[in-house]
Every structure is written in structure tokens, then in C-alpha cells.
């Protein structure tokens, strides 16, 4: 197995300061939020890495960094051995964009309502000059629609004539149009009903099997993540706190936050069970706690956790950022 995508110590800082005049009058300091704060991972060809976490943990920002929608403040994204930051703005950028595509969360917002499906799915093909004639273009769009379980005849309809699940399939067809190798999926099923979610997840799995696609799958739904991924990174306030194979992570979660998350999910197999209540909530990312950012909610926190920030370290076959785990305090 070869590594296709690699993130090396990615950092993205957003400036969220008040406007200049307010800063002067109200004597407010500049404010910065570390949306992504030192994230590293790698994805092997043909595999799926999932990033999970609660709102505001930075998972969508990572997705955007990977496809070049944001430029990293520090760190690198490597794709197939290339450092992408240089490539996006060079003449090679177009070729790279063909190989990396993205599927967005909201199928209502990500399709142009005034375009037909033919135009939506055909645009990347025209843009990357992958078809030589109009006939070939139409044929190619038809094939793509069939692959995602729609009919070729659907291509002259508009997005509003489709249901949410069908729209998300159109998004997938559009993402596949350039024959990409790597798909970044940002919550692709969270806007969908469960029966429709199942249709979309099955299609994504089939496509991966047939074409050897590599996925970065962003989700807050751990059950979905368990179903689709080979490896999982759990994010909390801009950092990965645990990175492990799916089986290992769900079988034996190590980080206290991972354990808390897993314990918090209502599962249909657990009717009426008593659970340990989850304490507290995600702190304000503008003012993250000192040391380990999870310490105010962590049952295992001690003095060291309050002062020293744990790094993601290899431990018993997985990677975990927790003093309690590496010291054997759990």
C-alpha cells in the first residue's frame, strides 16, 4: 500500500478580530482562532480515513485545506508525493484539481438551481477538456448518472426536480466526472434521511471498490464512520486526539474524549440503558483551556494535563494524545 495523501503538521489560523475602528475605540485586542492546530495524518491509496468530532473541532477546515479551498497557515499537504501549496497556483494546478474532488454536505446549496443536471455534471468535464465533442460529453454525463443510480434521461432536469438523496447522488456524479483519485466528503449524508443515507453510503462503497478511490470522510456520526472507514481520527478543538484503525478505535477507545463520544451515542441496540452522563461541553475555541484542551471535561485529568499539552504519540499500535493513557493512569 502506498500513501496517497499526507497532512503534515497542518495549521490554519483565522483572524476573527473586530473591525479596526472597534478595536481602537473599545481597546480590543486582535483575536485569532486556531481552527486547525497541528494536524498530521496519512491516507493510503484505496482507503478511507474518517475525521470525527463535534461542531467547531476543525474537521471541515481540514477538508477545505486538503482540496485547496483554504491555504494552510503552516504545514503541508502532500498528494502523491507533491507538496500541494505550490502546485495549486502553478500551471500544474489544473491537473491536481482534476485528481482531487469534493462532495459537500448540503445537496440543496451545492447545486446551481438554474443549471440542468447535464450542465452541473458536465462542467468539470468541459473545464478539464475531458470530452472532445458535445455527443461525447452527453454520453459521459449519462454514464456518470447511471453509476450513481440515476437514469441518463435525468440529465435534462433541474435540481429542484430531485429529492435530497438524488441531489446528493448528482453531487457524487459531478465529483466523479473528472475521474478523480481522491474524494473529500464533508458530511455527505448528514442532511439525508436514514433510508436515503443508506443508499448514498452503499453507492460510495461500491464506487470505492470498483475504482480504487481514496476518501477523506468527515462526519459527526460515529455509526456512519464505523461503517465506511478504515481508519478514524478523532478531533477536538483543532487537534487530533486519537488516530487508529476503525476496529481498534471502536473496540478499544483509548482517549477519554473518544470514550466519552462513544458512550454518548444513542444506539438502537441499547434501549433504556443507564449511562454515565457526559460532563460539560466544548470550550470556546477563542479561549482554549491551557495544557490539554480536554482537561476541564476529563475524568482523568491531573496537574500535568492542566499545564502540558500532550502530543499525538504512537502507543500500543495506535496514536493518542493523552498523558493519562501514556502514563497508564486510566
Amino acid at each position, binding site marked *: 500500500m502506498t500513501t496517497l495523501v499526507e497532512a503534515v503538521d497542518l495549521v490554519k489560523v483565522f483572524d476573527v478580530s473586530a473591525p479596526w475602528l472597534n478595536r481602537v475605540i473599545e481597546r480590543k485586542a486582535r483575536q485569532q482562532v486556531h481552527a486547525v492546530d497541528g494536524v498530521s495524518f496519512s491516507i493510503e491509496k484505496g482507503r478511507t480515513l474518517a475525521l470525527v468530532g463535534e461542531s467547531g473541532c476543525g474537521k471541515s477546515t481540514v477538508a477545505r485545506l486538503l482540496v485547496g479551498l483554504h491555504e494552510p497557515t503552516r504545514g503541508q499537504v502532500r498528494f502523491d508525493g507533491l507538496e500541494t501549496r505550490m502546485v495549486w497556483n502553478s500551471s500544474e494546478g489544473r491537473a491536481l484539481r482534476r485528481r482531487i474532488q469534493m462532495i459537500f454536505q448540503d445537496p440543496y446549496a451545492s447545486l446551481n438551481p438554474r443549471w440542468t443536471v447535464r450542465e452541473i455534471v458536465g462542467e468539470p468535464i468541459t473545464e478539464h477538456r475531458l470530452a472532445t465533442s458535445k455527443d461525447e460529453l452527453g454520453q459521459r454525463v449519462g454514464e456518470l448518472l447511471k453509476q450513481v443510480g440515476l437514469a441518463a434521461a435525468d440529465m435534462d432536469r433541474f435540481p429542484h426536480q430531485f429529492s435530497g438523496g438524488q441531489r446528493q447522488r448528482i453531487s457524487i456524479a459531478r465529483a466523479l466526472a473528472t475521474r478523480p483519485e481522491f474524494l473529500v466528503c464533508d458530511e455527505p449524508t448528514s442532511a439525508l434521511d436514514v433510508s436515503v443515507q443508506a443508499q448514498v453510503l452503499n453507492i460510495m462503497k461500491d464506487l470505492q471498490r470498483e475504482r480504487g478511490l481514496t476518501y477523506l470522510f468527515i462526519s459527526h456520526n460515529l455509526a456512519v464512520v*464505523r461503517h465506511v472507514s478504515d481508519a478514524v481520527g478523532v478531533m477536538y478543538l483543532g487537534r487530533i486526539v486519537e488516530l487508529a484503525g476503525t476496529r481498534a478505535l471502536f473496540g478499544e477507545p483509548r482517549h477519554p474524549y473518544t470514550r*466519552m463520544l462513544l458512550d454518548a451515542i444513542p444506539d438502537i441496540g441499547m434501549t433504556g440503558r443507564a449511562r454515565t452522563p457526559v460532563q460539560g461541553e*466544548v470550550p470556546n475555541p477563542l479561549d482554549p483551556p491551557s495544557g490539554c484542551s480536554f482537561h476541564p471535561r476529563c475524568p482523568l485529568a491531573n496537574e500535568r494535563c492542566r499545564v502540558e499539552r500532550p502530543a499525538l504519540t504512537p502507543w500500543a499500535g495506535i496514536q493518542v494524545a493523552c498523558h493519562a493513557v501514556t502514563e497508564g493512569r486510566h
Partner: protein
Amino acid sequence: MTAALLEVRHLRVEFPTRRGTLVALDDVSFDIAPGEILGVVGESGAGKSLTGASIIGLLEPPGRIASGEILLEGRRIDNLPPDAMRGIRGRQIGAIFQDPLTSLNPLYTVGRQLVETIRTHLPVSEAEARERAVALLRETGIPAAEARIDQYPHQFSGGMRQRVVIALALAAEPKLIVADEPTTALDVSIQAQIISLLKRLTRDHGAAVMLVTHDMGVIAEASDRVAVMYAGRVVEMGPVQDVIHRPAHPYTVGLMGSIPSMDGSRDRLLQIEGTMPRLNAIPAGCAFNPRCPRVFERCRRERPNLMTTGATRAACWLVGQATGAAA
């Protein structure tokens, strides 16, 4: 089982449109006992929120209750004039909606909203109402309630806001709480806290809860009984354990199979082909028949009503056949 607190009988809700009348709810019947949590589950457009809106008397025009009745403690509430209904809403029926930000007035402090609600429904003084408001906030798990009562909604996080909304719903100690997707806008760790809060409050106050959600996990964990809705009708109803582990209706079977499970035992999710029909194109016979893997002739002709099978009731001709109880 004790006498039902809420009874919904053959409820039918229609939306008159220029192109004919749309039937959004058709023959929906169920009841909820005091202290019970009834989960109402279904996909978008199944009519679950509409059922909740009908009960609290907030059906949006032109929607109207065409037939059937809703009884609270044996008294009809579906045909009350708006003024009388306003007295019941809040006092006897509390409501919790999905988005905690839109259910609170951003211009008033949380305390003012609570005090106003309490004083509208209960004959207490300003000071007593405030005391009560602090107690409510504390009960719903808001730390430093005395200080936070004077803050505005935007100063609260999503989970804390939903607690305020729950405190508001509980302010007049209603007997019934209609909670429409109360945890959908929240993160899982907060969702877990809100669910256990709802469960504790029903236990302590003996209130009945109608919990509307699309999340089977939430239903499994919180509710005692569950009603599964499809295209404006209840297709299966029974104790939560039975419906989840031994679903009788093919739609419920599909719904359960399509949920990725946490034990990771499914390689491929069961999928229900197609989508829920639009209100103007509900198929004849059983509304689920075009998507049903076990459809047969009778399903296309005749609409099944709920029929008893084991501990649950399902609206499916397969059940009718199996038990020979077909009406």
C-alpha cells in the same frame, strides 16, 4: 396502564390547495399515559411534526384538522377557540422545538422570558416567579443559575439554550410535553445530556412526553413506546424493544436495517429503494407498496389499518395474513 393523558383519535389533517386537497395526516390514532415517553419516528415528510403541531394547536394555515379528535384528560382540545387553546398551551402542554435559538426571544433576558411565562400561567408574584425560574434553570442543569438568569440567549451555548427552552416548557408544570426534534441541532455529547434530562424530568414530574425525532437511537434510548410514521399514517406502534428488535412492518424493517450499527456488524446497509411519496401522489392501497420488497396484490388495492401482531400493531397486510385477522 393508567388512563391515557392524551388521546388522539382518527386525526386527519388537510391542506386545501388550488390543485385539490392534500391529506397530510390520515387516521392517526394513539395515546400517551402520564409519565410515559412516546417516541414518534419517521423520515422527513412523514407527518410527525404536523402531529405535534396539531396537538399544541399550532397548525399553520391553510392546514386544518378535517376530522378526528384530540383529547387531553378526556376533554376535547382540537376544537377550542384560539383564546382557550392559548390557556392550555404552556399551562398544560409544553412545547420544545428543534432550534433553541429561534424559540427564545433574543431581545429579552432568559429570566424575563421565564418569569413572564410563569406569571402568565400561575398566580405568583414577580419575586416568587423569579425564584421559581432560578430553580428551574438549576433543575435543567445550568450552572450558576442565579447569575445566568440575567443573561441574554446569545450568551448561552446551543446545549445551554436548549436547557433554557426545556425550563420554559416546564415553567407551568404542564402534564404533557411535545418535544419536536429536541436534540437534532445539538452535538452528540450534549444530546446525551438533554435526553437524560428529559427522562429525569418525566420521572420526577410525572409528565408525559411526545418525543418527535428522526433518530432511532434517540427513540431507543429515551422512549417507552414508539409510533413509526410513513406518509401521514402510523404504520407501526408498540413497545420500543419490540419495534426495534422484532419490527413487523416492512418499512420499519427497512428503516432499522438502513441505520449503520455501532457494533459494526453490517457490511452493507439495507436500502429502501425510492423515496417517500409526495402528498399529492400517495399511491393507492398501502402507501408503502411501491417501495415494499414484499408487496402483493392486495397491498395495491386496499389500505391496511393497524393490526395486532404480538406486542405491537402494524398496518400491513402481511400481518393480516399471518394472524388471519384481516378486516
